[in-house]
């Protein structure tokens, strides 16, 4: 059994996109170590509702690390101090009795705050809509299995496809760059025969959209891959650069 802990919670509260936000401090008492971080926030919200106060708004959905909705910047790290895990997979046993835990929203011009800890990540949807798909007829599953693909290539494509679009890479980046996300979305197709057909068109469209939406220029600090809950590698960024430069030189 995990021990119960008591701690101070500093949470960013902001009523709307234009409102000025500030930290509010809450005392949390006797929280069991096997409570997930989001469940702990549920407990806080229940207390707030009982006191007739506004609950804290935060994004969440699957609560099992696959949807990418949860997006909290906990104690200086997107998705908190754990590596290879989302906020919903973070447990209170990671913290110590008497700790102060600071919770902030993703901070990036590309992800404006909607309310409290919730940010608007539609920019990622727009980048995906610009070219993050295959529009040719690739047939059904048996057809896919008829094309031999090397194990290492398949694995690499699968690792890129593990990206859940959470935006932690942007949140971690001092340049507000979305390169890790875009490179994962470009790579998962560029590596496979069905995706190669439209690779040049895709990479140009997605980079153009990413730039248009105001994301920054990557300077390879590697903060993104260190904080990515799916451990997406910056080798994908090298592939994105390669695909983009190749496509532009061909034009």
């Amino acid at each position, binding site marked *: 059994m995990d021990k119960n802990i008591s701690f101070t919670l*500093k949470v960013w509260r902001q009523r709307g996109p234009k409102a000025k936000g500030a*930290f509010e401090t809450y005392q949390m008492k006797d929280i069991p170590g096997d409570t997930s971080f989001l469940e702990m926030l549920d407990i806080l919200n229940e207390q707030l509702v009982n006191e007739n106060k506004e609950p804290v708004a935060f994004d969440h959905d699957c609560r099992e690390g696959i949807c990418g909705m949860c997006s909290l*910047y906990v*104690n*200086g*790290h997107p998705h908190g101090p754990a590596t290879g895990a989302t906020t919903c997979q973070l447990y209170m046993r990671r913290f110590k009795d008497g700790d102060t835990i*600071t919770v*902030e929203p993703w*901070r*990036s*011009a*590309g992800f404006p*705050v909607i309310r409290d800890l919730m940010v608007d990540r539609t920019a990622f949807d727009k980048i995906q809509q610009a070219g993050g798909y295959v529009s040719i007829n690739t047939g059904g599953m048996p057809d896919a299995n008829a094309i031999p693909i090397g194990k290492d290539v398949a694995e690499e494509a699968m690792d890129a496809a593990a990206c859940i679009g959470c935006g932690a890479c942007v949140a*971690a*980046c*001092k*340049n*507000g*760059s979305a*390169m890790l996300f875009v490179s994962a979305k470009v790579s998962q197709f560029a590596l496979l025969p069905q995706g190669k057909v439209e690779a040049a068109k895709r990479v140009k469209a997605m*980079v*153009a959209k*990413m*730039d248009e939406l*105001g*994301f*920054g*220029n*990557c*300077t*390879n*600090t*590697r*903060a993104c*891959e*260190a*904080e990515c809950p799916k451990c997406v*590698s*910056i*080798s994908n*960024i*090298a*592939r*994105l*650069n*390669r*695909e*983009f*430069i*190749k496509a*532009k030189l061909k034009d």
Partner: protein
Amino acid sequence: MWLTKSSVGRKVIMSVSGVALVLFLLFHMAMNLVAIFSTEGYNMICEFLGANWYALVGTAGLAALVVVHFVYAFVLTIQNRKARGSQRYAVAERPKGVSWASQNMLALGIIVVVGLGLHLFNFWANMQLPEVLHKLGMHVDSATMASVADGSGYIAKTFTCPVYAALYVIWLAALWFHLTHGFWSAMQTLGINNKVWFCRWKAIGNVIVTLIILGFLAVVVAGFFGLGALGA
């Protein structure tokens, strides 16, 4: 033009200009080592690289590279600060795997450019510049003209001064940090990288950059202590 209009293109400009400058440094360092062994040899190189058309074209090319690299460093940094937004995190921790240099490239670059200014003042302003002015028909006093190719003399004169020696050491240290990140970062930007080559480029970069800096440092040290051909 995609080189200036896209984020990846702007980074290509940064990396190509940076790598070209690294190649120049490699040459410059090798040339400087001669000064430790032979005054005549070194001054011959200096004469060779005086106000000749090829040396002047080279100098202009280098100046253009530095200006492009410098201007884009600021363009990128301003755009990136804007992309980051005005609201900063209250708690920020540098994650594992993120080097200090990678987050301070602009500051390191500014130290490098200030050092470059000092360097031009110490050497170029006494060597190539007066020769060019003289050729253009301007008056340059004969004592200056007599020593425009005395590179060894200027090295000895500059580095026996402890303040200059210390400033050059700081300059070289900043350059080392800038380039240990810059070298592999340039390969990554140009897309010639993957999981295997990541470690290789880092190792190759660290070796090349450390050799460059040690080579330059050797001349500063030899000048300061009057060793080899830089002795009295």
